[in-house]
């Protein structure tokens, strides 16, 4: 396998080239070791933080904002969104509240509440 990607660890934006199979990946184009770590993580287990808004069952003028407390697998982003679209909360909700305990390995935490 050969894959080209852009490093996002710092603004330099190295063009990285990853080659190899399942257990043996080599990275070229990285200016520092962090680039190598990033490229291998992106090719083996890419993770993303998902943020979204939830409806508030007893409010019509506001939304509650949430995020995955830890990053979830990139491939699960749309599945996370689908679950969150089906979820409503009831005010009052405060920043830091936990809405779900385990969604693809992460808790769902409130980032903007509703009084």
């Amino acid at each position, binding site marked *: 396998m050969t894959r080209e990607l852009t*490093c*996002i660890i710092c603004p330099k934006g190295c063009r990285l080239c990853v080659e190899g199979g399942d257990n043996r990946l080599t990275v070229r184009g990285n200016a520092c070791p962090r680039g190598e770590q990033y490229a291998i993580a992106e090719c083996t287990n890419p993770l*993303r933080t998902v*943020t979204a*808004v939830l409806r508030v069952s007893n409010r019509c003028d506001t939304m509650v904002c949430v995020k995955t407390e830890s990053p979830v697998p990139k491939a699960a*982003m749309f599945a996370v*969104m689908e679950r969150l679209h089906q979820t409503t909360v009831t005010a009052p909700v405060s920043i830091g509240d936990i809405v779900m305990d385990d969604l693809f390995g992460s808790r769902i935490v409130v980032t*903007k509440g509703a009084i």
Partner: protein
Amino acid sequence: MMHYDIVVVGGGPAGMAAAVAAYDAGCTRVVILDREPQPGGILMQCIHNGFGLHKLGRELTGPEYADIYAQEVARRAIPVLTETTVTNITPDRVVTAQSRHGIVKLQAGAVILAMGCRERSRGALRICGTRPAGIYSAGTAQKLINCMGYHVGKRVVILGSGDIGLIMARRMTLEGAKVEAVCEVMPYSGGLTRNLVQCLEDFDIPLYLNTTVAEVHGQKRLEGVTIAQVDGQRRPIPETRRFIPCDTLLLSVGLIPENELTRAAGVPMDPITGGALVDEHCQTQIPGIFACGNVLQVHDLVDYVSEEAERAGAGAAAFVRGSALLNTSINTQPGNGVRYVLPQTITDTTRDVSLFFRVSHPMGKVRCTVRSGADLLTALPRPRVAPGEMERITLSPDLLRRAGDTITIELEELP
């Protein structure tokens, strides 16, 4: 008339950080005025994460970042007058505002301007075609989706690849819309690399450079746009016109510092930044009026807004206490490859002063030089520079004392 040490106009990240810094520097009679029902400014609709990495060492969403500063404001019992729109500021620092209780007038020892910026709109672009529903500035769509829970559209074209456009491409996609394309009139994106990767590449959204929206189609609702490549003068090339069906066009085509109050007060402006001319304490050329955050210069990271606002807050507090802000005056100016330098004047050569600047176009390896006449004060190598990323050089008192009356920052391309 009510008297305050410091009146802060705007309760976004700049206003809150400035108020906290002024309070901590000994000015306890501080007030923040904001036209919205709650403080936080634009952060409240920026639900994505990535805020605070530089300043707080944590990756937060916009509302979380705002909440940290709102708590600092509350801990100091600094009053925040919400739904209060400032309508006038005089050079002798009388602030007039419209509030739910009527018109209020405040006499300030110092005024800190922190009004932020607004988006450039369709009218400023002169796009041909009809005027159907479905054309939004990216920030308006962001507010409708994130704060009010509306679905804005199903098939989307985005014009402008600045960070807001990129963030909205991802946001609309995750909400179930199909983003057909992001068009960028320039030969490069103005957004952070991180956003290009995580907002476009992650979702296979195409980015067309040197491309603009040449025409808008549709009577009641938008039915599609014609995009076209542009020539060297950024004019659409007719042979490259191509129709894309869509029901929504988002415009992310630049931010304009919201300086109507500043101009009306007679504060001299910088035509390049769109903000006031300031010294290193963020003081404008009218003594006692300070400016910070996006109303002074459009920033790429909120972390830098907070830092700049802290300098303005400390400077305003020093002005109120009557400690002389020194008045040796060195002017700064942009040279080859540099669009602007801020602050435009330096008044205190006894402390480190940071100069912030933006380059005029992306370049590979460069050397940023700081010269005073023929004297090379310092030089800084950079592996890569881009207009979307603000650069900084800090000058020590030793270097400042060597400088004459003008400092020039220039770029030299390296092989």
